[in-house]
């Protein structure tokens, strides 16, 4: 008997098997791809729906007459918490009318979704009666924490969550313009690679080019095109395949986004530093007897064929170098696409493109400058993904880069922000 053959285990096994589907909310009565339930790809992943019985009401909607609305005269149709009128002018017109609203959509992998297994789950010295109480929230979120991610993070990390301050591109967009409240979507999927991008856009992104606002899309497939559980380079994406995958994704975005949108292409991470910093440290499962280090765990996962990245999480220095070379090559493809006039002009009626130059080396350098240990930047259980502090630093560095080199992509500062807060408080929260 395998564990999943045991009848009592079936609901859990079914739950895990459902993760591979379309990455849209399961609890979604009006089928508008937004939900009022946090988990199961709901409000942890995309702005909370403010009406579950009307598909025309959801975050990101343009409430103006051009999309059939009345500027939220009575009802908040874009869930940003702003509605009603003052005299003959609606608050949506008054506060947001010319502000250039912009949503944010993440297409990517486990880094974009912020994968994290709490280390206390595997450290017997830290296990208490309350350790696993949040499992029924964590498992339905696929061990991802999009609400703390660099792209769509929006809630404070409290209690047993990874301590630290959440920072994200979304939070900064909202701080710049409160009208953007709740307009975020995280289509980050553990293990996703560039070939998934086109399906993510077609199946999982909730955006209507005629009825919704423009958005910043962050295409962030930072690892799985070179990372997998296979030895060697045979299963890595080639440069030609990668280019075709990204172009197919961009073509799909061209049909999905409203004009005035922006696409950020995030280069692959250089994971070669992981082994250097982590291999000799003790893994949480070995804390009790100090007898299992990260190199042991890497070897074990490789032996089982389930390593998230055998190319970098290996004692084989040659393979680590080859993996880095391929990652650099694929990043250069993105760089070339973002600067290729023929390519960019194909999409220029709908969106412009920018290649993000912020690298993991930049993050590590900044982290060290702030007096931190590099190991504290890495998730303790998998020894691979960035922790909350790393995600927040990534958001800050990317934002700085955009401010400096592509300020047109982050929109204007809304002078009505204080008035919005004064009138509408937390705008319905999250």
């Amino acid at each position, binding site marked *: *008997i*395998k*564990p999943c053959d*045991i*009848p*009592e*285990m079936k*609901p*859990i096994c079914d739950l895990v098997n459902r993760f591979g589907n379309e990455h849209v909310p399961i609890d979604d009565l009006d089928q508008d791809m937004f939900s009022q339930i946090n988990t199961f790809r709901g409000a942890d992943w995309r702005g909370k729906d403010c009406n579950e019985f009307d598909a025309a009401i959801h975050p990101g909607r343009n409430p103006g007459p051009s999309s059939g609305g009345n500027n939220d005269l009575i009802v908040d149709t874009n869930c940003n918490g702003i509605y009603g009128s003052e005299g003959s002018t609606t608050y949506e017109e008054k506060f947001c009318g010319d502000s250039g609203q912009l949503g944010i959509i993440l297409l990517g992998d486990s880094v974009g979704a912020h994968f994290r297994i709490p280390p206390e789950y*595997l450290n*017997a*010295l830290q*296990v*208490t*009666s*309350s*350790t*696993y*109480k949040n*499992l*029924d929230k964590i498992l339905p979120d696929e061990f991802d924490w999009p609400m703390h991610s660099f792209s769509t993070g929006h809630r404070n990390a409290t209690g047993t969550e990874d301590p630290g301050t959440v920072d994200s591109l979304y939070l900064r967009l909202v701080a710049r313009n409160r009208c953007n409240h709740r307009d975020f979507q995280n289509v980050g999927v553990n293990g996703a690679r560039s070939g998934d991008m086109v399906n993510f856009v077609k199946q999982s992104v909730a955006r209507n080019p005629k009825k919704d606002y423009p958005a910043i899309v962050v295409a962030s497939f930072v690892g799985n095109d070179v990372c997998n559980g296979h030895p060697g380079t045979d299963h890595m994406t080639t440069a030609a395949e990668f280019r075709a995958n990204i172009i197919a994704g961009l073509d799909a975005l061209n049909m999905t986004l409203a004009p005035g949108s922006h696409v950020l292409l995030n280069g692959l991470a250089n994971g070669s530093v992981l082994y250097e910093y982590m291999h000799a440290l003790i893994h949480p*499962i*070995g804390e*009790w*007897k100090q*007898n*299992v280090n990260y190199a*042991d*765990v890497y070897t*074990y*996962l490789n*032996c*089982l*064929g*389930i390593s998230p990245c055998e190319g970098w999480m290996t004692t084989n220095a040659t393979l680590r170098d080859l993996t880095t070379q391929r990652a650099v090559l694929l990043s250069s493809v993105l760089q070339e696409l973002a600067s290729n006039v023929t390519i960019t002009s194909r999409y220029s009626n709908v969106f412009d493109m920018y290649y993000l130059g912020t690298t993991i080396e930049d993050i590590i350098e900044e982290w060290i400058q702030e007096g931190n240990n590099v190991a504290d930047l890495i998730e303790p259980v998998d020894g691979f993904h960035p922790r909350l502090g790393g995600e927040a630093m990534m958001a800050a560095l990317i934002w700085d880069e955009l401010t400096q080199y592509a300020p047109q992509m982050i929109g204007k500062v809304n002078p009505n922000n204080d008035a919005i807060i004064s009138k509408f408080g937390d705008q319905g929260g999250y």
Partner: protein
Amino acid sequence: NGGVPCAVCTLLTGLVGQLAEIHNETVADSMARFCSYLPASYQTPCAALVKTYGPTIIDLYEDHETADMICLAIGICNTSSGTRCHAFPEPADAEERANRALKIAATKSF
């Protein structure tokens, strides 16, 4: 060699063994402790796993087997690639113990 289920089995079995040592209790008690720590909706599946695999896990822990050997013995891990994977340090007589574990896996009905 068993993939993800093998890794989950090994990590959880290892954790239960460590909890028994830390709390100076039997493995049976530490399995009960572990299940009681889970949210209510996961306690029934956990109890079912304990009912299915628990007696063998307890026997093998009494024989001082590692979590790796135990998961091999209960058939969740295997050696299909010809390699024996281990998360925890192997004892000196690992080969002999692994052969015994594989015999148990071949004969035991859970």
